[in-house]
């Protein structure tokens, strides 16, 4: 028992004893005790009321009377209250600091719960996407930012992906949206202004397209004169070889420009339409016939295992086959074989080009589809490759929702596998 509690009990007992003593003196012991008890009660009631007032008005100093257990209680409560207030203030300060720092971020950040409802967002999210911190709390993010691409991203649950959507606030600006998992069920949506990146890649595409286009016309003139010169027959002997070589190189240049134009066209267009069907079997035959010239030494085997047809553009699929086949032939020795296979799989259909050639070093495989990439700098150029073929293949396949898988073993040969999804494949002619 504490010192103040002991004092309190002693005080009350003393008061009661004094009352009883005075009562006994006047021969009314009980009355004396009663009066003393009433006085004690009144005093306690007064203290209780002033404590109540002090709690309500938060003004402890004015209502503190006397000294004793009540004053101890007063002081303790006051102390706890002040400490709570100080702690609250410091938390509030901390929260303000955190909010200030998230507001200072140039990227928009939105915390979403499991149902994609907005928990909180920062200032950049308001500037970039028009999200209002208080008003939009509890609304689903795809109700406020309604771009179909973002909705699809959130629905897919594939949190590694990101999409570019037009900004709903500023016209002509683009936002990159990325969703990352965060604290259990929650998600964090990042919004970044990527207008410059999109503008830059458009500028690059336009530049390549325009430059190729502009270079083509002078080249046609040069080509024409070189053709005429080479065919005229009355060239001095020492000029014959240079003119023929110049003609060959200018034709090659024309081919490069054409492929660059084709690439920039493929890059700037979206998915290929599904209006037309492509008969793969006939396409494979016609491509093989184009290649059957005396210069081709390796065997071409065609292996059509399915009558399925493909939804897409015949011209582009043909260029895929031509590019893959010419690549394979280039690296396959005369006694080797190149096999073209078309077949259905559980997930759609595949076009496979396998060869028994030199194979590709595994470290080069990831870079094969880059423009002008060469695994072996020394030899490829002499054999007529341009370095755009696989880039074109990759873009055509992307336009057809398909993917390219490359596997290879040095000295054994390589396999190029184009996997088309089921919704691009028509199984049988009705």
């Amino acid at each position, binding site marked *: 028992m504490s010192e103040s509690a002991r004092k309190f009990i002693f005080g009350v007992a003393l008061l009661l004893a004094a009352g009883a003593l005075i009562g006994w003196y006047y021969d009314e012991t009980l009355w004396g005790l009663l009066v003393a008890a009433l006085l004690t009660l009144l005093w306690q009631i007064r203290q209780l009321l002033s404590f109540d007032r002090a709690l309500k008005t938060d003004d402890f100093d004015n209502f503190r009377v006397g000294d004793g257990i009540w004053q101890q209680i007063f002081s303790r409560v006051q102390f706890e209250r002040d400490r709570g207030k100080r702690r609250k203030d410091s938390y509030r300060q901390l929260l303000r600091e955190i909010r200030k720092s998230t507001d200072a971020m140039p990227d928009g950040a939105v915390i979403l719960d499991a149902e994609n409802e907005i928990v909180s967002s920062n200032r950049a999210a308001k500037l970039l996407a028009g999200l209002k911190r208080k008003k939009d709390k509890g609304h689903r993010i795809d109700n406020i930012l309604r771009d179909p691409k973002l*909705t699809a991203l959130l629905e897919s649950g594939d949190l590694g992906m990101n999409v570019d959507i037009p900004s709903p606030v500023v016209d002509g600006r683009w936002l990159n949206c990325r969703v990352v998992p965060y604290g259990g069920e929650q998600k964090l949506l990042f919004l970044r202004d990527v207008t410059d990146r999109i503008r830059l890649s458009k500028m690059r595409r336009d530049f390549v397209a325009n430059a190729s286009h502009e270079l083509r016309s002078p080249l046609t003139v040069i080509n024409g004169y070189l053709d005429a010169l080479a065919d005229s027959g009355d060239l001095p002997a020492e000029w014959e070889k240079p003119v023929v070589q110049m003609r060959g190189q200018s034709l090659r240049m024309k081919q490069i420009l054409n492929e660059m134009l084709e690439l920039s066209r493929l890059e700037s267009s979206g998915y290929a339409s599904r209006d037309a069907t492509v008969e793969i079997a006939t396409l494979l035959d016609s491509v093989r016939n184009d290649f059957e010239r005396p210069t081709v030494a390796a065997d071409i085997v065609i292996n059509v295992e399915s009558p399925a047809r493909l939804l897409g553009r015949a011209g582009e699929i043909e260029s895929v086959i031509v590019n893959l086949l010419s690549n394979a032939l280039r690296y396959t020795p005369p006694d080797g074989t190149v096999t073209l296979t078309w077949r259905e799989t559980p997930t759609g259909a595949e076009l496979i080009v396998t060869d028994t050639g030199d194979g590709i070093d595994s470290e080069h495989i990831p870079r094969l589809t880059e423009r002008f990439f060469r695994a072996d700098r020394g030899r490829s150029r002499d054999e007529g490759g341009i370095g755009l073929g696989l880039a074109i293949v990759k873009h055509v396949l992307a336009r057809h929702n398909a993917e390219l898988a490359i596997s290879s073993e040095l000295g054994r040969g390589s396999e190029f596998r184009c996997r088309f999804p089921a919704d691009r494949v028509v199984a049988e002619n009705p």
Partner: protein
Amino acid sequence: METSDLTDHISKRFNKDIEDLRNNVLAMGGLVESQLQKAIVAMVSGDSELGLKVANDDYKVNDFEVSIDEECGRILAMRAPAAGDLRLIVAIIKTITDLERIGDEAEKIGFLASRLAAMDRPADSYRELKTLGTHVLHMVRDAMNAFARLDVEGAFDVVREDERVDEEYEAIQRQCITFMMEDPRSIKRVMNVTWAARSLERIGDHAKNICEYVIYMVQGRDVRHTDLTDATDINPG
């Protein structure tokens, strides 16, 4: 939170049905917005492929309309909603009709864009169409925002905005008439521009309609065909 008005039912399934319905309407709105945005870009940048893509993608908007309509019918039949829920369903049935019309107009603009891309382009590359288009796109976006946030103030702003769109449309029409009088050879091209402007103006009207349904949904007041100053005077919110 305002949405709690909508999601406060004894039946959890009913809550979910209504929430899903609302989300679907907003997803449809998002699709329509992006269609319109692409159509305007196709028109201004002369991108015929994008224009045709917009025209070909209109079926997605129509699919949305059919499925939402069906869902509304199902809820009306099975749940017999009352008061706020009934207003919500009625407003949604009307809203999707207008959204579908906006989709149709965007399809038309996409088609016109692909046709105009093949003709000569004026020096200003249809700046006036771009201004009107951006204006209308913002109206549609704000209308859907008002729908999402049940924001009566925002809805009134859009309704007011429609007058300015009408003025811009008038100006474009006058300009087109001048062009046609100056150079009769341009009539074919300018006619197409007039059609596109007309479509944009119609979209503005549809956005205004949607906002009127939002006001009806939240406050239960029909502000169609009324003077706007009266409507805002008795605005309790």
